């Protein structure tokens, strides 16, 4: 037993190093975010006069930056509520279409062997190899030519196209985890392929599909480059990412900016941690070999 303990924990020096790495990494990861939250709770004058007092006293906490950031411009706010509405519309639309376009393809890649692992990996690699900023050049020209710049639907089309490969990759990993014997049993019992998909495969894969949808939602919610290219001149249509980035360029008070940054982060953080286990297994499935 004592030997096993040594194996599990190692010598004292290694143990100290391990604790030090964890403490430093945690501080490095969380400090900027905690700083952002703290700055969103203090008035601008307090930040400028005393940049080092980070934690506001309880009676000095000022939550007013949040409603001010969210209110529309005509009500003296910064319009973040509207940007959230735009981003919700685009991100939810992207999720629905990206899943619809990839779920059957992913299943086919796993079970029907004519379109295998290699071609999916090749495709994902091709999409990744082709830089977003380079892709932006023809898409910008095309969308301008057909008059879809300045429209949320145009941006949604781009997002669907950009997220289908990732969705395909994650869904394939989830489908692979379903034992084939269940489907074989159903087929022997006379189940047709569409019924098999609807009644058996999709319900089993549903947690994976939800996790993929969440990941696609995060990508669409966080996306900046295409929103900048297509919508920058069209303030009512700004998405959350574009909105916060544009406000950074203006002389918007720091607490408002920090409140906005925290507000747009909350939905993705909640979503990610709600599905953390599934998301992580879907994303890292290729890493285990």
């Amino acid at each position, binding site marked *: 037993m004592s*030997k096993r303990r040594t*194996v599990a924990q190692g*010598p004292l020096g*290694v143990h100290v*190093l*391990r*604790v030090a790495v*964890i403490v430093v*990494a*945690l501080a490095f*990861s969380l400090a*900027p*975010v905690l*700083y*952002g939250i703290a700055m969103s709770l203090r008035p601008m004058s307090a*930040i400028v006069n005393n*940049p*080092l007092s980070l934690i506001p006293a309880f009676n000095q906490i000022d939550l007013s930056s949040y409603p001010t950031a969210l209110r529309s411009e005509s009500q003296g706010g910064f319009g973040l509520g509207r940007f959230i509405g735009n981003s919700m519309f685009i991100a939810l639309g992207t999720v629905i279409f990206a899943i619809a376009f990839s779920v*059957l*393809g992913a*299943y086919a*890649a796993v079970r029907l062997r004519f379109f295998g692992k290699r071609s999916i990996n090749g*495709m994902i690699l*091709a*999409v990744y*190899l*082709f*830089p*977003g*900023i*380079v892709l932006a*050049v*023809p898409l910008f*020209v095309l969308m301008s*030519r057909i008059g879809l710049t300045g429209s949320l639907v145009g941006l949604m089309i781009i997002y669907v*196209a950009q997220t*289908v*490969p990732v969705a395909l990759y994650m869904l394939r990993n989830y489908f692979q985890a379903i034992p084939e014997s269940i489907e074989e049993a159903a087929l022997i019992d006379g189940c047709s392929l569409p019924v098999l998909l609807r009644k058996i495969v999709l319900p089993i894969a549903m947690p994976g599909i939800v996790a993929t949808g969440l990941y696609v939602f*995060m990508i669409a919610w*966080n996306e900046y480059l295409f929103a900048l*290219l297509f919508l920058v001149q069209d303030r009512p249509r700004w998405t*959350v*990412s574009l909105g*916060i980035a544009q406000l950074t360029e203006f002389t918007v008070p*720091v607490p408002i*900016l920090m409140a*906005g*940054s925290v507000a*747009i*982060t909350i939905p*993705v*953080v909640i979503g*990610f941690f709600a599905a953390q286990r599934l998301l*992580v297994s879907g*994303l*890292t*499935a290729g*890493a*285990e*070999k």
Partner: protein
Amino acid sequence: MVAPTALVVVLVVILPFLAVILFSVAHIRLIDIPRLTLNNITFTTDNFAHALSSQSFWSGFGTTIAYASLTTIGAIVGGLAVGLALRRPFRGRGLIRAGLLIPYVLPVVAAAAIWKTLLNPQYGVVNALGKTILGWDAPIAFLSTTSQTFAGVHVPVTLFTVVAFEIWKTTPLAFLFITARLQVMPAEPEEAAALDGANSRQVFWHIIFPQLRGVVILLVLLRFIWSFQSFNDIYLLTGGAGGTQVLAIRIYTELITRADIGSAAAYGLVMTAILAVLLSFVVIVNRRGERL
């Protein structure tokens, strides 16, 4: 069943790629778009000639390589350190893991806004700490200083700042990949080695690291590809100031500021080609290594 998926790939990868090739040998500017058809394009090789002979292209290339290499190494070393440190289960490990993932989950725009505030020369906490605790004479403009001399050494301050930001933002993913691999690793070889008297360093280099080789190579590839083409993170922090004009920002400048589609496409094509060459080199070297 695969038709919708295949259609999307054609629309997203193949057609745009052909369009980039077409534009790169064409004389097109943004104002030409409304009356653009396939018949009225004037062809030229000027775009490539300009790109390849321009000083700014090659300096951008150098910056991109430095940025991509440093961030790749930083994220993988960080991910390895944290992954190994969190390998053994203990109370609260799940919570610590969740905390470590925050920078990855955070929208890049929110992260950049927070970092800009942190590093602000007037009211940012980093400069305030530097002045009161470290005794700096003047605040450091972290996001607009191409080079500053510290103790006789020229330091590319802003480039290092954007590299630090990218490492901060991408280490969690490296950590997740490495953890996924560590979790399926059998414990017996390590226990046997420890019983035979191997020390921690020997166990790491001779037993753990060889098993991590595959995932580390995968991460090198992915991280290098992503940071080579990184636009958002740098553009949001600096807008390309302070010596951070990477190729992606050059392309954006050609397209939007200079309104020259042909030139932007030529830059983009050269950038894609360089990336493809670098990666095929890595893949070939790796294949050869596996065979030996």
